[in-house]
């Protein structure tokens, strides 16, 4: 396959790094999948239909209605391309699983459907990388992901987007977080994509938690309409949505909703935006809904520019203006995510470092 290894690394898919399993798709073809640990199952979704009937009967379009939008309708009419990942009861896996979805331009639309199932007490980290094989290809990527987290399980789900300037991307995601389970989503997009629209939803059970972190660096003429919806349905459940958005000329609409529906729900969201250019737009729409008196929901939002005082301060130490600015921007994007394994953090840092180097 003609994709440069650096490009794979820049989307978090490092063939040398330790991983418990792999899955790689180019256009509509599954190029490789493997699984190196007992208790973990990684296979094409189509294969899973044959091996585990419940996947088709209960899980497929179990969280996302087939007729939710044009994309889900399209996806429901074709054979699915994507992974089925399952971790058996009580199995805790330290090394992350790596998945890559590459768009080579063989077809105008790339339709992906993934299903993740963690049984009671299981834990897993998945790093998904998405990119064009070549920056020039144009088309649409539609990625549907349905995630089922059993009681007390824990999933860290990192998504790294490195799409080219002519790509439109429409991920549709839904997660059911079972009692006492934990879901951590960590999203990074730094490349000059044309358009990304996504509004994943987590339904959070009793004493469970869902956290969405996103880092978006919007290049000139990129358009993002992204966010997350957290429905705190179980007693004592909690949710968090944190986003850091930088615009050097692109438009970012950041929608965040937390709905506290029962007793003891705790929710917090934070959206910080940094505008680097006059033609950039950041539109932050934080929304809180409370449906029970005994809940605690809060949000913070800010949009600003790089502080001149901070730039001057760093310059007094001998750093050039651009060096000082990029250090501050890099710092702004450095979200400290509790519970993110070091191995994954290293991948994410590397991706951001690569994206920022020489480009600002």
């Amino acid at each position, binding site marked *: 396959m003609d994709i440069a290894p650096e490009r794979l690394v820049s989307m978090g898919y490092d063939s040398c790094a330790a991983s418990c399993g792999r899955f790689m798709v180019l256009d509509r073809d599954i190029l490789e999948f493997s699984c190196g640990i007992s208790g973990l199952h990684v296979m094409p979704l189509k294969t899973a239909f044959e091996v585990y009937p419940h996947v088709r009967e209960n899980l497929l379009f179990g969280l996302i209605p087939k007729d939710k939008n044009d994309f889900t309708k399209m996806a429901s009419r074709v054979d699915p391309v994507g992974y089925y990942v399952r971790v058996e009861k009580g199995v805790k896996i330290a090394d992350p699983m790596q998945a890559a979805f590459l768009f080579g331009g063989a077809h105008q639309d790339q339709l992906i459907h993934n299903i993740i199932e963690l049984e009671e007490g299981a834990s897993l980290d998945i790093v998904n990388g998405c990119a064009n094989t070549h920056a020039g290809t144009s088309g649409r990527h539609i990625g549907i992901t349905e995630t089922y987290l059993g009681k007390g399980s824990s999933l860290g789900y990192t998504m790294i987007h490195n799409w080219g300037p002519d790509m439109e991307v429409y991920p549709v995601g839904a997660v059911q977080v079972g009692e006492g389970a934990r879901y951590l989503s960590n999203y990074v997009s730094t490349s000059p994509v044309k358009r990304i629209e996504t509004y994943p939803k987590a339904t959070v059970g009793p004493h469970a938690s869902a956290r969405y972190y996103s880092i978006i660096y919007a290049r000139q003429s990129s358009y993002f309409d992204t966010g997350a919806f957290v429905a705190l349905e179980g007693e004592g459940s909690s949710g968090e949505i944190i986003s850091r958005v930088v615009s050097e000329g692109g438009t970012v609409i950041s929608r965040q909703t937390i709905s506290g529906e029962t007793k003891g729900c705790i929710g917090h969201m934070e959206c910080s935006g940094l505008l680097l250019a006059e033609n950039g737009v950041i539109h932050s729409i934080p929304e809180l809904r409370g449906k029970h008196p005994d809940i605690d929901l809060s949000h913070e939002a800010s949009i600003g520019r790089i502080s001149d005082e901070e730039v*001057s301060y760093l310059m007094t130490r*001998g750093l050039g203006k651009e060096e000082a600015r990029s250090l501050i921007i890099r710092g702004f994007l450095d979200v400290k995510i509790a519970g993110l394994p070091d191995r994954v953090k290293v991948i994410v840092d590397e991706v951001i470092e690569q994206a920022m180097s020489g480009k600002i």
Partner: protein
Amino acid sequence: MSFLEIKDLHVEAEGREILKGVNLSVDAGRTAIIFGPNGSGKSTLLGAIAGLPGFRVTRGDILFKGKSILDMDIDERARFGIGMAFQYPPAVKGVRLGVLLKHVNSDGNWVQTSAEMLNMTSYVDRDLNVGFSGGERKRSEILQLMVQMPDLALLDEPESGVDIENISLIAQGLRVMLEKDKPISRRQRSAIVITHTGLILDYIKADIAYVIMDGHVLGCGAPGEIFDEIRQHGYKKCTMCFAEKYRDMNTQDLEK
């Protein structure tokens, strides 16, 4: 020609004249102290030397190593040998102290030694000044300067708000930076130290002191004596005596 020579310096901030004709010089290897009440223009003077935005030089000149630095940008001045410890340094979220230090000086051993000396090793992984107490910020400033090793250190109230234990740590850093353990004739690095309280004088010997009031240099002299006078009579009462006593000396200085 002095190492640093400030001539008839007029500086405006937000349209208001703050410095109204300051003359001052510092020789290589010497430490000058600046005394003056709050709001007299001490920080403005250091800001103008460092080239911070917001301070507009409307008249006069600043010569460093024989060259006017007025047209240099902040970072150029820094690379030319000017360093500054801020009175109120900003906090910079996401930028770790250690990362900045690496950008300032690639000599990892020296960074480590400096951090140890200032008891700051556990702070290098923290965001720059974020959540630092007053005293920690001052230590962080001195650490950054030690790593930078400027030829001219501008120290804006390095001891204010710092407890005694930490003052001695800071002073130790300054002694190294200013080569205080070498004989006077062999010292190269200079400093201007602003002090409101004079406390730092118990730790760092200065060679000369200037008194600034209302944007003017009233005079200069031996640091200990001037400080005693200020302590005894306060700045207000001193105005007169300085004005008379040091006027001659000041002009002589300039002529030299």
